[in-house]
Every structure is written in structure tokens, then in C-alpha cells.
């Protein structure tokens, strides 16, 4: 297997495996926010803002994996 094929596999695995954790985390956060809004609809504004910021934080993990994949595919330092 040469380095380019390994890079493609690496990119696929980085995105595939790297999105599992953030997906589970975002699901939990969203479920908790839904629960809170259902109990206390008047706090929906604050909850939504905090939820968006929190989701952005969680999503950063998946985005890191994506950036690694993009680096492997488009700017791989080891493939000439």
C-alpha cells in the first residue's frame, strides 16, 4: 500500500470515527435542552443561546477531525 492510499483511508476513518463522539454528545445536549424548554418555556431564549454556543464547542471536535482529513487529502506533507 502506498502512502496516498493510506492517506485516503486515514481521512475516511478520521471523519467516520471522529463524528461518533460529537454526534452522541450533541444528541444528549439537545435532548437536555428540549427537556428544559418543555419544563420552562419562558427560559427558551437563554437556553437556545447557551445551547448554540455549547453545540459549537462540541462540534469543534468533529471539525478538528474534518480538518485532519482535509489536510490528509489536500495538503498532505508526506506525499510529494
Amino acid at each position: 500500500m502506498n502512502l496516498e492510499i493510506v492517506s485516503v483511508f486515514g481521512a475516511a476513518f478520521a471523519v467516520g470515527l471522529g463524528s461518533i463522539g460529537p454526534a452522541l454528545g450533541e444528541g444528549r445536549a439537545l435532548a437536555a435542552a428540549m427537556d428544559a424548554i418543555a419544563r420552562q418555556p419562558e427560559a427558551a431564549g437563554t437556553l437556545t443561546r447557551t445551547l448554540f454556543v455549547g453545540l459549537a464547542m462540541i462540534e469543534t471536535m468533529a471539525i478538528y477531525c474534518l480538518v485532519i482529513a482535509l489536510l490528509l487529502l489536500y495538503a498532505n506533507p508526506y506525499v510529494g
Partner: protein
Amino acid sequence: MNEGPLSPDILFHLGPVPIARQVVTTWGVGLFLLLLGMLAFGPAGARYPRLRAAVELLVEFERAQLRAVLQEDADRYLPFLGSLFLFLLCSNLLGIIPGLAPPTAHPETPAALALLVFLLVHIEGLRVRGILGHLQEYLRPNILLLPIHIVSELSRTFALAVRLFGNIASHELVIGVLLSIAGLLVPVPFLLLSILIGLVQAYIFTILATVFLAAAIGRAAEGEAPEEGT
């Protein structure tokens, strides 16, 4: 292979400085916003009452969002953070105009904006709290945590840029892939989704900058979002 979002798209050279397509696009966005502001609030403003009302609505929304985090300091930072939001909004939504690409889909523009936010946070922290007060924050609760504070400071700025770039660039890629495998109408719902993503990312970038700033000047509202991004 070399058409990826990480390789700059050089249009022409200005002396020794290469000018990329994103730079020209950001000039265009800046000019558009300048024109919008001049039309709505300049000497000719009275002739466009609807435009003025629309822009005022937008600015009032921004002010309300900033006030929820920064409280009475909001008006001081509204010019910078509000312009940041409008700029990001226009840049992110450029992808739905045929022939234009969002400048935020390349790493350079988000990196420059994150650097601006980094500078703003520290300059304002130094101005409001003084040099000692600002540096004390990094020794809390113990001097042993200083390296962690420094790493978190750098990584959250990096994350701010990478988050914006990753979201916009990945969506451009998704639309590109969809276009290449399924022709006409399939990408349309994804283009709609890209509007939502552009809006949310512009909002998140601005609100995170606001939260960092609020933490630096010591006005973090209680129960506010976590200030340490990773």
C-alpha cells in the same frame, strides 16, 4: 487533488503580494456593507425608509444579543462585534450566489478574523483591568495553572477560526460532491441548509467573541456559556 479548500486561489499579483480570490471577495463584501450603511443612514437615508428600518432591526437584534452577555458595556463594543456579525453573515451567504464563493471557506479569512478577536480581547482586558489585573487572571487559582491558561487561550482562538472554516468549507465540499453525482435538483435542499449553517456560524463566531471579551473584562453574566473553548 490540488483544487482543495486549503490551497489559495491566486487571482493576480499586486507588486510582490499575491492577491487571492477570497481577498477580493472580502473587499466586495466590505464595499457592499459600506454602501448599505451609506444608503440607509447617509445623507440620502431619508429616501429609503424601509431599508433604514431593516438595518435598524438588524442592529437592534445585535444590540439585544450583546446586551444579554455584556450588559451595559454592549454599546461600546457594538461597532466592532456588530460589523463582525454583518461581515460574516454576508460572507457565509455568498455561497448561494452563483459564481461567488464564501471567503470563509478558506482558512485565511477566519484566521484573520480570529486574530482580530484575540487582539480585541487582550487589548480590552489590559485597558479595563490594567496590566496587573489582566495578568492575574492567568495565575488563578494557582501559578501552576499558567501553562494551561496559555494553551487554552491559544487553542480557543485557533478553534474559533477552524470552526468557522470547517463548517463552511465542509458544506461547500458536500454540495460539490452532490453536484458531481446527482445533477439538477438534489443539491437544492442542501443549499437551503447552507443558509442555515451560514447564519448559525456567523452568530456563533460573534457570540463566542462576545463571551471571550466578557470574560476578559470581567463582565461574564452568571449562568452564561462556558468561557473556555477547546
